[in-house]
């Protein structure tokens, strides 16, 4: 049995950090894992999705609460996507998979797939439920065993912070580690007359948390090509820093500030980068040009949340430098994303503007409204979660003409069994209100299966309709293998 270790010496830490960074460069890594807001919407139905229940529960003061369905509840980047916090990791081990490796929420005990049943050894399946520390004081002396290969050490100034994650609340996972490393690899096949197999992306994120309230985060990524990653590595624009920032966090009311390269917080951060609410608004997670360099501030006191950013842009005529995040052009922009993510429903709105020379891409303004509903919260026999987003904006063509565009995305997920979800989605785009026959529709239906933590298979039938009858309507079968840690 391994007890929680004491802080490791500075030299070892420095070597570990250097080693991880060197490994990243040597492996010339991968792209971005993006968040799935549906999971957040779903997580509000029970507390033991995201952590084990404390013994003798005592609701903390609002200023100290970490309970939020905003992105920062599950992701190191408070705007969402990519490397997960200990709470996100716990959710990924306990709730998502068919076979859990952290204690499964009691509400899901009888949702096992046929012939699989209660096979995981992490869950007691009796009245002796696992428990965690109810208060900061108990967390500081919590000495239950830790077993966590992907999170090492504790910050130099102590293991537990009032505003950070409490050790012991997440089973055997390390709650607030000094160093966290992960990966996100996506491989896909597409059948549309021909069968195409290609590596979509790799992300190798590393987070270093030397002292409380401070985290240094770098996520190196590359886009894959059908012929493999080699092509991508020959391309001077990839691999590159998808995100790299300094994060000040673990502050009252879930407040944080970050500075560096990131994707502005706007709308729902979906993991499907081809969705028109993302790509159509310059937020495609796979493209370097979606990244900006700037500062972002946010807060999430329990259910409300707000995020605001100011950033500098690169010209639309050139790709941002792969490693030099300060290589920007004359343009600037700002974005605000705010709303309320309650346990059974949520609403939010976003605004974003970009100001730059016409030849660099021109000015844009965008507004977004989104919502989700989780009927499962109210009726346990109806495990469905749905979310929608509508985005509207204007942008400039190189000639200076300003035109309007819009996009819509809606998705409903029904959890058939633990680890098996039926997914239906629809998206729509009109890229230019003035232009005839340029709007498109896409519907999708399929299954998302997570047999074990860290492995997800997403199989979808997708049909695409263009507005000109007989030209371009098509369909495909898309299967993605997603390896995440």
């Amino acid at each position, binding site marked *: 049995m391994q007890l929680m270790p004491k802080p490791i010496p500075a030299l070892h830490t420095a070597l570990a950090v250097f080693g991880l960074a060197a490994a990243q460069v040597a492996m010339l890594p991968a792209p971005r894992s993006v968040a799935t807001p549906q999971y957040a919407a779903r997580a509000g139905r029970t507390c033991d999705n995201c952590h084990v229940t404390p013994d003798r529960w005592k609701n903390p003061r609002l200023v100290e609460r970490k309970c939020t369905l905003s992105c920062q509840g599950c992701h190191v980047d408070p705007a969402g996507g990519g490397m997960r916090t200990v709470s996100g990791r716990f959710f990924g081990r306990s709730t998502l998979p068919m076979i859990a490796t952290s204690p499964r929420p009691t509400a899901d005990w009888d949702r096992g797939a046929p012939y699989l049943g209660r096979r995981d050894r992490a869950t007691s399946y009796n009245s002796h439920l696992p428990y965690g520390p109810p208060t900061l004081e108990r967390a500081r002396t919590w000495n239950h065993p830790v077993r966590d290969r992907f999170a090492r050490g504790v910050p130099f100034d102590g293991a537990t912070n009032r505003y950070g994650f409490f050790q012991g609340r997440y089973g055997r996972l390390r709650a607030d580690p000094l160093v966290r490393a992960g990966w996100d690899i996506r491989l896909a096949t597409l059948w549309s007359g021909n069968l195409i197999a290609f590596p979509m992306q790799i992300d190798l994120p590393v987070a270093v948390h030397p002292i409380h309230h401070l985290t240094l985060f770098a996520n190196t990524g590359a886009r894959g090509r059908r012929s493999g990653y080699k092509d991508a590595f020959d391309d001077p624009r990839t691999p590159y820093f998808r995100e790299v920032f300094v994060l000040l966090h673990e502050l009252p009311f879930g407040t944080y500030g970050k500075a560096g390269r990131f994707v502005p917080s706007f709308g729902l951060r979906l993991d499907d980068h081809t969705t028109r609410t993302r790509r159509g608004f310059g937020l495609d997670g796979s493209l370097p040009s979606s990244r900006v360099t700037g500062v972002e501030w946010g807060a999430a006191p329990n259910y409300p949340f707000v995020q605001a950013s100011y950033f500098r842009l690169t010209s639309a005529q050139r790709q941002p430098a792969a490693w030099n995040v300060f290589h920007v052009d004359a343009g600037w922009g700002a974005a605000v994303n705010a709303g309320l993510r309650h346990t059974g429903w949520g609403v939010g709105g976003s605004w974003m503007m970009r100001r730059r020379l016409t030849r660099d891409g021109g000015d844009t303004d965008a507004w977004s409204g989104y919502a989700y509903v989780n009927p499962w919260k109210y009726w346990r026999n109806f495990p469905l979660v749905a979310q929608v987003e509508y985005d509207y904006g204007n942008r400039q063509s190189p000639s200076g003409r300003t035109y309007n565009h819009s996009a819509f995305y809606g998705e409903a997920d029904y959890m058939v069994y633990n680890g098996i979800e039926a997914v239906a989605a629809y998206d729509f785009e009109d890229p230019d209100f003035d232009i005839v026959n340029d709007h498109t529709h896409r519907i999708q239906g399929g299954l998302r299966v997570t047999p074990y933590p860290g492995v997800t298979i997403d199989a979808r039938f997708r049909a695409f309709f263009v507005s000109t009858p007989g030209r371009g309507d098509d369909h495909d079968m*898309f299967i993605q293998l997603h390896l995440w840690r």
Partner: protein
Amino acid sequence: MHSRLLRRSNALSALAWFLLFGVTLAFIPGMGGCGKGNLTLEQADPGAVPLDPDFKLVFDIIDRQCVPCHGAGSDSTGGDVPAQQNPGGETGVLGVGPDLSTCVLIVRNRFAIQRDVLDTRRMPPGAWPRLTSEETLTIQRWLVNGAKAPCN
């Protein structure tokens, strides 16, 4: 009795939320005039792309939209065949058609690009988003102007 009523009430709440949600979203795509345009990009904004686009603009579009599949490793032997003589297109040994990763190969396969991207819009394939109006017009004007490129 009380718990049965509570369960029924919860079920009704869940259904009410879901129906309200569904009805609301059904109206959203019709907002704001989407799908009502009646001009081509050529008519609405002739200056949206250069009248005689440089090959670099075309190359960037092909690189972004096509090369992820039609990259090195695809068939590099096809091309230079008028569309009407090769309606099925050139299919490479790996089944994904021509390699479009270099200037020479783009120029060689320009008829296939015109057919599949501009005329039939069957590329990008399946449910992949198609090219934008600006991208389409850029390639169209490049072709009309003789497909000039540094390699020809």
